[in-house]
């Protein structure tokens, strides 16, 4: 798993690539919690993620909750079909804001 954190129009964009699984989700969690500890809303770009297991999903849930407490925006971008099914299984699609692409996300925020 690789990750990249960038700034775009006052928003922190965290992009993951590869598999998020039991081995590396602690690292993903650290990255996410650092992002939501900042001052900007956070977009998590999952377009490069092939597979995300439940430990990765759990880290996203924790980050979302932290962001909510701090009144920060937190949304997911480009969740793959297979990952979306995992989200739906646990009704998480009702909790997360999910955008199709990064550009959509920024357009929606206007």
């Amino acid at each position, binding site marked *: 798993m690789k990750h990249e954190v960038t700034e775009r129009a006052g928003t922190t964009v965290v992009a993951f690539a590869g*598999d998020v*699984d*039991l*081995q590396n*989700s*602690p690292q993903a*969690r650290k990255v996410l919690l650092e992002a939501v500890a900042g001052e900007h809303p956070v977009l998590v770009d999952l377009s490069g993620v*092939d*597979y995300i*297991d*439940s*430990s990765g*999903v*759990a*880290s996203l*849930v*924790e980050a979302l909750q932290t962001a909510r407490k701090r009144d920060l925006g937190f949304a997911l971008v480009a969740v793959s079909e*297979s990952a979306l*099914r*995992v989200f*739906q*299984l*646990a*009704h*998480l699609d009702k909790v997360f804001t999910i955008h199709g692409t990064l550009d959509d996300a920024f357009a929606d925020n206007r």
Partner: protein
Amino acid sequence: MGAAVEYPAPAKVVEVSDLVAHFGSRLILKGVSLDVREGEIMVIMGGSGSGKSTLLRHILGLERRTSGTIRLLGEDTSTLNARQMSDLRKKIGVAFQGGALFSSMSVGDNIMLPLHEHTDLDPTTMEIMARLKLEVVDLAGFENLMPAELSGGMTKRAAFARAIIMDPRILFCDEPSAGLDPVVASALDDLILRLRGALGMTIVVVTHEVESACKIADRMTLLDNGEVLFTGTVDEVRAHPSERIQNLLNRRAETDTIDPDEYLRRLTGEDVDGGRV
């Protein structure tokens, strides 16, 4: 874990060939062969004494076999050392018949046990994962109960949650609907279908319930008297001309397959120093 191997679809994730197994000197499995393909729901069906539970225990590596090979996720289990076996077992989940929840631990701790034992995840992550799985099996909010406080159906659900906590490649279910009323049993069947649908998991179910088997199976293996009678889709099984198979499906008592010699031995007690207590 490791690089995800790309199998030419549909890969075989369970391969049993010519499995022969004894219990004491009693022959339980008489050369059973069986393949399970990735992503399918395979139901192993048979009556009591058919050897289906023994077959499952062998696939899980809980018994010593007489001969034959078993491959799980491509690995011949007889060639693995204890540590490799333990690694392999992290990729499979098992929901036992009675749930097999640890009675001294809360439901939540039961579900998190594999995570505690096998991962370095943060406790918060583990708790969220456990609650997510409880959501999936419709047991949200039950994590602090003790197993003794759960009903039969809830126990089985909790066992499912524990079995899938590590996102296994293969999920084994032993008699998921046994001992449950039809409504609860049918809800468990739905759960199995949902899990496969959402997670693409390969699921192997051992059962004696014909209706349940027909509802969830992609393919079925009919086991009788330690032998595979037939493996095929639900439609193929239903349309099969063999009387023995139709009897099994309609639960008619079998009368014509008794081996007179063996029956006589049984009656006269010649066979008594088998493995039975």
